[in-house]
């Protein structure tokens, strides 16, 4: 059976091509989805990729969440469809209420672009099951508004329920609370993270192929569903 993974393109999206390539590396069929079209084309999962949707006007992700395609994504996520938000995609999922919290300007005020070590804290989600718990992976981080913020009660809830999926290793690159790099929904199907696993799927074009595990994890989640 062929697994179909939708990749959304908004005006200002940058990383849809790499996200589709990552899906194909995992032997999924990558299906382009368009921001203005609510049709999800029967996909098994959706990736909301990185970039600067709508120029980051108002707030990062604030306008994209109202795009016609996102109404369908929110509805499908409610029924358990796996959704991955990377960077701007993570910001969009937070604005859409699919994940708690918000991303704000980096504490150092500078755009950060570097290869970043992450620790895998939860390997039970639809997007992280291929990793060993506690494994460290190296993937690019490139964002200006990547500081994860939430109220203390939300952070306590995420930590208490094991919903922190990835945590920055070493110095905190952007002021994220508790070094949080990525989180998941209560059911483990929706994951958002600021770093870019789709840029680290082949040692030829990225620092490592450590990111590929996320897309292979999805294949397991869909095939075993």
């Amino acid at each position, binding site marked *: 059976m062929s697994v179909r993974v939708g990749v959304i393109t908004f005006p200002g999206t940058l990383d849809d091509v790499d996200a589709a390539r990552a899906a194909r590396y995992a032997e999924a069929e990558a299906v382009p989805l368009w921001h203005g079209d609510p049709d999800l084309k029967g996909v098994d999962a959706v990736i909301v990729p990185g970039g600067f949707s709508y120029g980051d006007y108002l707030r990062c992700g604030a306008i994209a969440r109202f795009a016609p395609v996102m109404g369908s994504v929110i509805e499908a996520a409610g029924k358990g469809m796996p959704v991955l938000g990377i960077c701007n995609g993570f910001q969009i999922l937070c604005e859409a209420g699919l994940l708690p919290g918000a991303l*704000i300007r980096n504490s150092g005020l500078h755009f950060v672009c570097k290869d970043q070590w992450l620790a895998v804290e939860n390997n039970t989600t639809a997007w992280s099951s291929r990793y060993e718990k506690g494994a460290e992976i190296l993937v690019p981080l490139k964002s200006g508004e990547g500081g994860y*913020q939430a109220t203390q009660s939300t952070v306590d809830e995420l930590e208490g329920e094991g919903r922190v999926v990835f945590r920055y290793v070493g110095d905190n690159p952007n002021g994220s609370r508790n070094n949080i790099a990525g989180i998941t929904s209560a059911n483990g199907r929706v994951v958002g993270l600021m770093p870019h696993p789709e840029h680290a799927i082949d040692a030829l074009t990225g620092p490592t192929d450590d990111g590929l595990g996320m897309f292979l994890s999805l294949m397991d989640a869909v095939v075993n569903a």
Partner: protein
Amino acid sequence: MPKPEILDPQGQAVANALPRLGFQGIASVRQGKHFELEVDDSVDDATLEKIAETFLANPVIEDWVVRRVDA
């Protein structure tokens, strides 16, 4: 405005710059956003509050206040 418990790196940078520029006695700075909407009389306060809460502000990290001013 960013909520009091939310880190405001931009406001902190402004606060750190002020003494360097010779302005003393400013304990802290918070940086927020200000929108001016030109509306006709049919737009009631409840609608304005809905616009603020669901679109202009992100209530997860920001507090907001609507103030109606006559032109």
